[in-house]
Structure formats: structure tokens, C-alpha cells
């Protein structure tokens, strides 16, 4: 019979109170852990996906939308830009690498991206199977796409117009899978890569229509965006201004827009954080009140234990332990809930590109366990100190 067992038995005697306290602590910790995990994951994803991209050029509109649509593949594109203007920009001496993107189709919610081999270099893509796309209507799948759609090299599939559903399929042209990428841990896992020509082919007038304006079509060709890598950091200042002022296109910096996005979400995160702190403060108060109240009843128990030979320190430890067991188990339960909740969010999340996972750990979680310890100490120190003031002789002989 050690004091750990005794403490556990004392807690189990007041199951409901103990349960309430554990749940309160767990709730606060769960909210905080979800916040930590989600913001770290989102931050990591944002960073990884935009790693080597200095600038995105696309049609005028919201710069944030431009970044979201062409780097994170979440939002809709702002529109298209003329291929002629784009080519001109791509040949600018300040540009080290420029990758054109043609968006607009999807397959089962996975975006089909028309691009060139520069994309492979930009993201450092590696093949798990097959080869990269070359001809029109050849496609290389991101690892997650191949998994979800159960496609393998040699299979065929139809793209659909739009970015999110497959109601409007391009039945005339089927893509052939020529390769499947290794998991990259970024947005490319969820993309279907093909050449720009394939995207044009999908959208060109159907063959039974008049052929006479083919020539004009080529001149009017458009793409959606260009991902740009600068030759030198000096260009950060000049190049975007040049694009924004002298062309009909707009330039947006992923770094700046991500920061802006984070500051927008930041208010919400901050509010939730304070809410969680409030819950944790309430839980500390609740643990304190339950321990403090139980001290009245426990006075006899403590006096009798002193009588039986327990030292004051032992009883102090017993009361501290009861408080700590509540808050630490609450903290651990909270972390479990946090991970589970985040995993469930990930499972039911619509946008597969920014999927969250519960199987992810951050150092801050250790702080949360320590916060649990701290709450326990704060809540139980006063009741525990009371054990020093119990007058055994008086307590036991007065009760007649």
C-alpha cells in the first residue's frame, strides 16, 4: 500500500468529480495541441510547397488567390494570361527558371497541371515507376493520386472540366498514365502532371466543327500562371514592379502572401489560444476547489494516517499526488484527443492538398504536459500545505 495507490483510490472514490476535472484539463490541452499541431503542419506545408519559388505571375486579381491556386492548388485561378506575354517574361534575363502552368481540369478532384519539364526540376520530382510525360495526353501522377484513384502505369482516364468535380468529362481524349511519382511530401503528391499541349487539346473546338480558324487559335493561346525563380536576389525589388506596371499581368510573392494569409488566420488562432488558456485556468480552479473541499472530509483520514505513523511530508505528497494525477492524466488524455481530432479532420478534409494528420508530433506537446504538471502543482499546493496544519490530537479527540 503506497501513497500512489492510496491517492488513486481516493480519486476513484469521487469518480464524477475526478472525471469532470480530468475532462476540463483534457479539453484545454486538446484545443492547444490541435492549434500547435495544425499551425505547425500548415506552416510546414506552406513552406515546403513554396520552397524554391520566388514569384508567381498570372492574371490580374487577388495576389493571395494567385498564390493559393498556382502553388498550393487550393483556390481557383485568377484567370489566364496570353502565352505571348508569358514567353516574353520567361526570357527576361533576371529569370533563372520559369515554369508555365495551364490549369483548369481535374480528375476525381485531383488537379491536372499542364506544364513543362522545368516543373520536374523546380520541385525535384523523382519517379517511383514509369517515366515522365512527354507527348500530348501522357500523364505522370503524384503518389497520392495514384493511390486514391488506383491507377498504374499504362492505365487510361478522362479529365473533367473545372477544378473540383467530374460532372463534365472530356470524353474525347483519354490520358494515359506513363509514370508515377515517389511521395514528395508536398502538393505534387496530389497533382496530375501533363504537358500544356494536352490541356489545349482538351479545350480546342471539337473536330466536327470548322477547321478554318486553327491558325488564329494558336496565336490566342493562353496559359494560367508562370512560376519564377530569380537569377539573383536583387530582382526581388525590381522584377515584380516591372511586371505589375508594364504588363497586363500581376506578380505575387509566395513568401509575402503566405505571411499575409497567416496573419489573417492568426487572429482566430490567437482567440482559440486564449480560450484554451481560460479553460485550463478554470480546470485549475476546479481541481483546487475539489481538493480544498475534500480536505474537510479528509481531515480525519489525514489525522488517522499521522497517528498510524505517516510523516507530514508523506501526507503532503499524497495530496499533491492526487492533484497531479488528475492534471497529468488530463494532459495526456488531451493530447490523445488532440491527435485523434486532427486525424479525423484530416480524414474528412475536402482539400486533399493541405491534408492534416494526427500522426505528427511537435516539441510544444512536451510543454503541454508540463503545463498539466504546473496546473496540478498550483491547484494542489494550498490543500497540500493544509496537511501540515492538521492537529491530530485535537481532530481525533474532538469528534465525540
Amino acid at each position, binding site marked *: *500500500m*503506497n501513497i500512489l495507490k*492510496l491517492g488513486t*483510490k*481516493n480519486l*476513484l*472514490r469521487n469518480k464524477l468529480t475526478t472525471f469532470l476535472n480530468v475532462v476540463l484539463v483534457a479539453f484545454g490541452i486538446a484545443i492547444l495541441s490541435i492549434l500547435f499541431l495544425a499551425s505547425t503542419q500548415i506552416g510546414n506545408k506552406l513552406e515546403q510547397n513554396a520552397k524554391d519559388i520566388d514569384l508567381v505571375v498570372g492574371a490580374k486579381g487577388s495576389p493571395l488567390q494567385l498564390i493559393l491556386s498556382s502553388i498550393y492548388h487550393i483556390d481557383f485561378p485568377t484567370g489566364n494570361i496570353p502565352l505571348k506575354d508569358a514567353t516574353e517574361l520567361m526570357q527576361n534575363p533576371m529569370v533563372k527558371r520559369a515554369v508555365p502552368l495551364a490549369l483548369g481540369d481535374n480528375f476525381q478532384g485531383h488537379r491536372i497541371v499542364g506544364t513543362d519539364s522545368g516543373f520536374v526540376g523546380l520541385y525535384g520530382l523523382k519517379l517511383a515507376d514509369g517515366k515522365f510525360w512527354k507527348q500530348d495526353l501522357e500523364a505522370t501522377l503524384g503518389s497520392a493520386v495514384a493511390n486514391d484513384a488506383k491507377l498504374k502505369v499504362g492505365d487510361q482516364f478522362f479529365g473533367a472540366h473545372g477544378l473540383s468535380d467530374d460532372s463534365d468529362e472530356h470524353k474525347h481524349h483519354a490520358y494515359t498514365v506513363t509514370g508515377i511519382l515517389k511521395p514528395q511530401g508536398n502538393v505534387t503528391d496530389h497533382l496530375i502532371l501533363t504537358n500544356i499541349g494536352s490541356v489545349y487539346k482538351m479545350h480546342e473546338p471539337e473536330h466536327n466543327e470548322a477547321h478554318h480558324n486553327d491558325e488564329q487559335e494558336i496565336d490566342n493561346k493562353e496559359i494560367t500562371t508562370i512560376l519564377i525563380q530569380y537569377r539573383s536576389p536583387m530582382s526581388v525589388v525590381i522584377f515584380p514592379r516591372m511586371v505589375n506596371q508594364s504588363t497586363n499581368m500581376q506578380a505575387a510573392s509566395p513568401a509575402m502572401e503566405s505571411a499575409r494569409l497567416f496573419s489573417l488566420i492568426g487572429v482566430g488562432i490567437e482567440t482559440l489560444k486564449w480560450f484554451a488558456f481560460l479553460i485550463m485556468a478554470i480546470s485549475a480552479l476546479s481541481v483546487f476547489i475539489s481538493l480544498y473541499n475534500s480536505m474537510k472530509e479528509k481531515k*480525519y*483520514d489525514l*489525522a*488517522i*494516517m*499521522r*497517528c*498510524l*505513523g*505517516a*510523516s*507530514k*511530508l*508523506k501526507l503532503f505528497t499524497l495530496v499533491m499526488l492526487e492533484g497531479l494525477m488528475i492534471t497529468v492524466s488530463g494532459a495526456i488524455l488531451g493530447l490523445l484527443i488532440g491527435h485523434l481530432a486532427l486525424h479525423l479532420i484530416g480524414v474528412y478534409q475536402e482539400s486533399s492538398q493541405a491534408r492534416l494528420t494526427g500522426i505528427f508530433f511537435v516539441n510544444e506537446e512536451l510543454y503541454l504536459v508540463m503545463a498539466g504538471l504546473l496546473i496540478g502543482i498550483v491547484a494542489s499546493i494550498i490543500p497540500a500545505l493544509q496537511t501540515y496544519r492538521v492537529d*491530530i*490530537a485535537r481532530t*481525533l*479527540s474532538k*469528534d*465525540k
Partner: protein
Amino acid sequence: MIEIHSLSQKYTSGPTLNFPDWKINDEEQWLLLGASGSGKSTLLNIISGLLKPSSGVVKLNKTDIYSFSLKKMDQFRGQNIGIVFQKPHLIKSLNILDNVALASSLAGIEVNHSRVMDLLDSLGLADKAKNYPEELSQGQLQRVSIARALVNNPILLIADEPTSSLDDVNAEKVMKILTDQASKNKASLVIATHDNRIRDKVSKAYLL
């Protein structure tokens, strides 16, 4: 052997109590008699090391028990003195077996399971070992507290008004248990009481 010598206890608001010298030999059984307020409980608390007297000494087997540090005193009491209170004061969250075993572990003695079960058995409580205090009657709880007082083979068993809230039949039973168990466990026995029903059960008496 327990000895008290020129003991007195001074209360800040009240009289100073002086206690006559007293010597209790091994395995002797004594009654501590006196009217309410005469200081019976005070003397018991002093003898059991719970209350430091204003002056005088208490010797248990030649050791002055108030020369110990507080922590040492707690341990000494746990190992050598068994106390039965008027109310059983059992720990509600522990079953009967654990309540008795707790006395050993708190005194820093390894729990001897067969000793605990033997005691419970001799007090007619063997079948209640796994029950919780609230499931037992007052009389049964009183017997559990006697078992708890005896589990560490104390030199001295002290009972403070053990019969005052019991009816005649139960009072007699408890007295028999106390005297029988004390001699069986080779402990000296001191029973503080103002209950006339039990006066003739024990021959030696110390009057306050």
C-alpha cells in the same frame, strides 16, 4: 514498560492539568478513569506521542519519546503504539484489508498478509476483508480499528472511550476483545473510560 513522570499540561485558556506518576509494566491492563474534562484524552494523547506535554517525561521502554524529532516520533508511534479511538476513523476509499494493511505500510513495516488475515479472522471479520467501511456496521468497524491498532504488534494498546457509544451487549464484547487481544498480542493495555459498565472488567485503575 511505560512510565510517566511529573507530567503537566498547561492550556493557554484554562487550568493546568497535573498527572500523577504512573508505571505500566509489560502486558499489564489498566483503566484510566475520570470524569469528562478531567484530562483523560489529554493524557492519552501525551502518552501516545500526539501531544507534547508542557513538562515531564514519558518513557516507553526507557526511551523518552518526546526526545524524538517529529518525523521519528510519527514512525515510533506507528510501530509501537496502537490506538483505538471512540470512532473507528477508517479510510473510506480503502477496503477493510487495505485499511489494516495501511497501518503497517505507514509505519514503515512491510505488510504481512497472513498477520492481517489472522487478526481479522480472530475478530470475526475474515469474510469482510474485501468490503468497504460503509458496508459494515458500527460494531464491525470498531473491531476493524482494533485490528488496525494491533497489526504492528505494538508494545502498548490504547483505547479512548471504546464503549461509550455502544449498547451493553456490544460494550461487553468490545471489552472482551480488547483485553483478550491485548494479552494474546502481548501488549500493555490502557482503556480510558467514564463508563461504569466496564469498571469491573479490568482490575488496575489509574484515577484522574
